[in-house]
């Protein structure tokens, strides 16, 4: 499936893993953004990545727990940046260009870089 092919169901796309051009795991498609209005065609505009996108999909109390464990960051991946959609979604640039590794980078800042074989 390519980004311009019709998508039968959003459920085919939701919760798929996302990989960048370097094969690095960048997250999961947590929600999607559409453009359009009543009476017009809906068009997929962007993929939303990060636990911040859970808000509309899970109850409030579950969202609080998620926020505690994983934070509530949300990154928007425009559909133009998507190369293919299959059993995983592949984007056409490195994840850092889409700010998909920001949380990893800030968590890794203070971590010692020694001792591992």
């Amino acid at each position, binding site marked *: 499936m390519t980004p311009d092919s019709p998508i039968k169901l959003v*459920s085919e796309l*939701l*919760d*798929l*893993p*996302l990989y960048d051009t370097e094969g*690095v*795991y*960048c*997250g*999961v498609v*947590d929600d999607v953004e559409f453009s359009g209005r009543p009476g017009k065609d809906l068009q997929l505009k962007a993929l939303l*990545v*990060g*636990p911040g996108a*859970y808000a509309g*999909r*899970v109850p409030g109390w*579950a969202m609080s*727990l*998620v926020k505690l*464990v*994983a934070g509530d960051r949300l990154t928007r991946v425009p559909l133009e940046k998507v190369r293919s959609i299959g*059993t*995983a979604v592949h984007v056409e640039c490195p994840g850092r260009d889409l700010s998909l*590794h920001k*949380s*990893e980078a800030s*968590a*890794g800042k203070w*971590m*010692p*870089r020694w*001792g*591992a*074989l």
Partner: protein
Amino acid sequence: MNPLELTLGIMTAVGGFVDISELVFAAKAGSQFGYALVWVFAFSTFGIIVFSEMSGRVAAVAKQPVFNLMRHRLGLKLGLVALAASIISNLITCAAEIGGVALVLNYLTGAPYPLMAIVITLLLISSIWVLSFKWIERVYGLLGLFMIVFAVALVALRPPWGAIARGFVPQVPHGLSTKELLTFAYFVVAIISAVMFPYEVYFYSSGGIEEGWGPKDLITNRVTAILGMGLGSLLGIAILSNSAQLFGPTHVDPVIPGSVALEAAIPFGKWGLIIALLGMFFAVAGAAVETCLANAYSIAQFFGWIWGRQKQPWEAPRFTITWIVLFALALAIVLTGVDVMTLVEFAILFSILVLPLTYLPLLMLSGDRKYMGQYVNGPIGKTLGWIYFAVITLAAIAALPLYFLTSGGNG
């Protein structure tokens, strides 16, 4: 297929098969019911082989670990329920393993149990930080092979081989009272849970991804699952059979993990005891590492973080922080003073409740041609998978009532 790699893989799986719950329940099962529960070990081992092979195949072909795919299949809400349940179950299991290793260290050195729990947790954290994934697997798995002393002890004790062989036939002992029948049923459920712990599948499939498995590794996957787990299970059966011969007739209830080591001490003396304790130390420490990493894998895969111990710890920082925090939480549980046996019982109970949630998405995924192509489940795999799924679902339904009716198998 590199024969040396394959042999090491099999030996690692053998040494890493037994954990604290299997040790405890095998010994208790043997002392209370003789050889009548051997078939449950064999049946459950076949089940874990079926599901491990499936999870390894999914990892090799779809190149995605179980928890990634589980979320896509179950959806976010049910996926979150599965994640929460597996975190609780794995955390309690990890605490039980840490408590078990601390007890073994306490037997070996005489140093206080809480201090040993702290020391072993720090050692485990250091070893995961320092060693690569392959070496973590090998160190604990290969040194866990000291457990073979239990199989050697079985031969030295000259057991009634005919009775052991008859134990492989599914049976319920005759003449049991209702109370004893319920206890027997509880042990059946507990052994299924202990042998088919969900963390084993999470760890196995994530390990396949860590080692970069592809379709060319499918034979390695199958052979490692069948031989490694099959032979590993024989150690559990040896512990059960030794217990049936040594503890059963004298009505000794091996209520503490240390009693199991006596099975090697009786035929081989001091050195038998030391080797048995070393085997228990490395096997249970390896299980602590596996449960903790399995939990960290699940969390990282679910939330879409970079994960893996093949990377340097700072290259997957959120994954690294997660497994360190999980170890600290497991240690905190141990330091509350809760008894190791209570932790083992809770681990068994929570795990059996999680098992259907773990194995259902795996069955669906490995049977989905979109993901698996030509490597989709065949008719035998599909039939076996659904039979085992039905059995673990029944066991999960029966677990809580049986636990309360039998006071956790204590009659």
